């Protein structure tokens, strides 16, 4: 077995040098890490699992990569090896991303982007890598299905001053402020996306389209008391029937509050705060405005 392992590692190295990532991964995956004959130490096992997963991810093969990352998950919890742990985290985030579990991926990317050390073992952590992780966190959050949890993550990212330096910041700002995104902005954002983030979903809509339509629908709910589906379709850039279908699904999934009048072909948006609360807020706003004026009068010596 010893010779077989050496042989496999050598071959894998050659495949890797020729960028034949999956073949290299398959070569390494032939190593029996759980053999009863030879006892391998935990760090070696973990390093092999992570290495195989990374090779599969080079070809965006999330399914095989996940298998090895799952294996690694039993080893990583008590591994003292920081570099391997970090590589494990990066692989896990990328697998979630490839599997379109965008919100979970965003949280993992964001976690990675907050690493403070610049030197882990013999591996140097450069700013670009951290910025890339942060940008990936923003992209995945924007692509995630609209809803309360996504809003919380968006708020975190928007308030993180490092984000203001990212190229994607203008989109993050608009999405956070729940503003309607227009087609040119969406197209510019799409250029930054990876292939799997633009893949078609079963109902013939891309991930990006669905995220943008749902986002714009929620933004419209902040601007309109009610709107006809015809106008809503124009606003969202889709057919009125499709607009109604997406709106009804979001209401059904409790990700947007409202009601649909199919006879009039109109949707009525409801605020998620009670009438009385709204009234209270207006009074609070009024008093706040009055206070502001009094403050500025004081500061001007009036």
């Amino acid at each position, binding site marked *: 077995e010893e010779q077989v392992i050496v042989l496999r590692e050598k071959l894998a190295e050659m495949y890797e040098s020729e960028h034949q990532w999956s073949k290299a991964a398959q070569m390494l995956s032939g190593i029996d890490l759980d053999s009863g004959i030879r006892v391998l130490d935990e760090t070696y096992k973990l390093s092999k699992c992570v290495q195989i997963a990374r090779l599969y991810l080079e070809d965006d093969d999330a399914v095989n990569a996940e298998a090895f990352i799952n294996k690694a998950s039993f080893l990583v919890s008590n591994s003292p090896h920081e570099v391997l742990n970090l590589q494990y985290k990066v692989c896990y985030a990328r697998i979630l991303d490839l599997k379109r579990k965008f919100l979970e991926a965003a949280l993992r990317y964001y976690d990675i982007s907050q690493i403070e050390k610049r030197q882990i073992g013999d591996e140097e952590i450069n700013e670009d890598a951290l910025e890339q992780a942060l940008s990936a966190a923003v992209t995945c959050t924007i692509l995630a299905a609209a809803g309360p949890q996504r809003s919380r993550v968006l708020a975190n990212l928007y308030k993180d001053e490092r984000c203001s330096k990212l190229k994607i910041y203008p989109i993050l700002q608009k999405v956070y402020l729940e503003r309607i995104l227009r087609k040119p902005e969406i197209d510019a954002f799409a250029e930054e996306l990876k292939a799997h983030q633009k893949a078609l979903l079963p109902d013939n809509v891309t991930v990006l389209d669905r995220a943008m339509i749902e986002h714009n629908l929620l933004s419209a709910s902040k601007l309109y*008391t*009610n709107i006809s589906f015809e106008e809503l379709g124009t606003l969202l850039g889709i057919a009125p029937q499709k607009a109604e279908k997406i709106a009804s699904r979001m209401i059904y999934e409790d990700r947007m509050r409202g009601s649909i009048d199919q006879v009039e072909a109109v949707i009525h948006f409801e605020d998620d705060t009670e009438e009385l609360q709204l009234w209270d807020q207006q009074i609070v706003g009024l008093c706040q405005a009055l206070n502001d004026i009094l403050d500025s009068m004081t500061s001007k010596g009036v």
Partner: protein
Amino acid sequence: MDIEQRQTEIIDHFVKQAEVMEAASLSALVLEATSHPSLFAFSEILSSPNVHKLEGTRYSSSRDLLRLFAYGTWNDYRSNAGCLPALLPDQVRKLKQLTVLTLAETNKVLPYDQLMQEIDVSNVRELEDFLINECMYVGIVRGKLDQLRRCFEVQFAAGRDLRPGQLNNMIQTLANWVCTSDNLLQTIQEKIKWADAMSEAYKKHRKEIEDRAEDVKKSL
């Protein structure tokens, strides 16, 4: 940061510039000020001495334009276009934004038809896009669009420069508000007293009933 805070620095900047400029360059300043995306108030610049001096010169139309942006609307411009300089697209947008603010001064519910007529747009989509992108997202108004009733409900609108004579209205409105609030507080006080009295009476009545019940029990 609200619109007033944002534009304070911009106003200071233009006022300082106006203080050291000649008439010819003041025209360029007026153009720049009335095109600035974050500036919606012009009375400070208007009251600058050098701007006053434009009166009666060949640059007086710049001063008239500044006064229009301080107090006027898009319709005002159209009815005086002959004696005012042609506007750039940024200035046109600005004047239409200011028109919405003026309309919001007198009404909280602005009908689409009136808005479309006042800011010269031909369809609902164009009107709503203007209200969304150029007004609500810029932060000068907050409110809700209602397509069924074809109206825009204003919740907040930034203040424009006060036209001469508007101050008295303002003082009157404030006085009314104070009076209303006093009445309201007094009414609340009265209601509290009333509630107390009622609860006292209720307790007393309840006790009487219980006493009588006790008597009846004893006698039985």
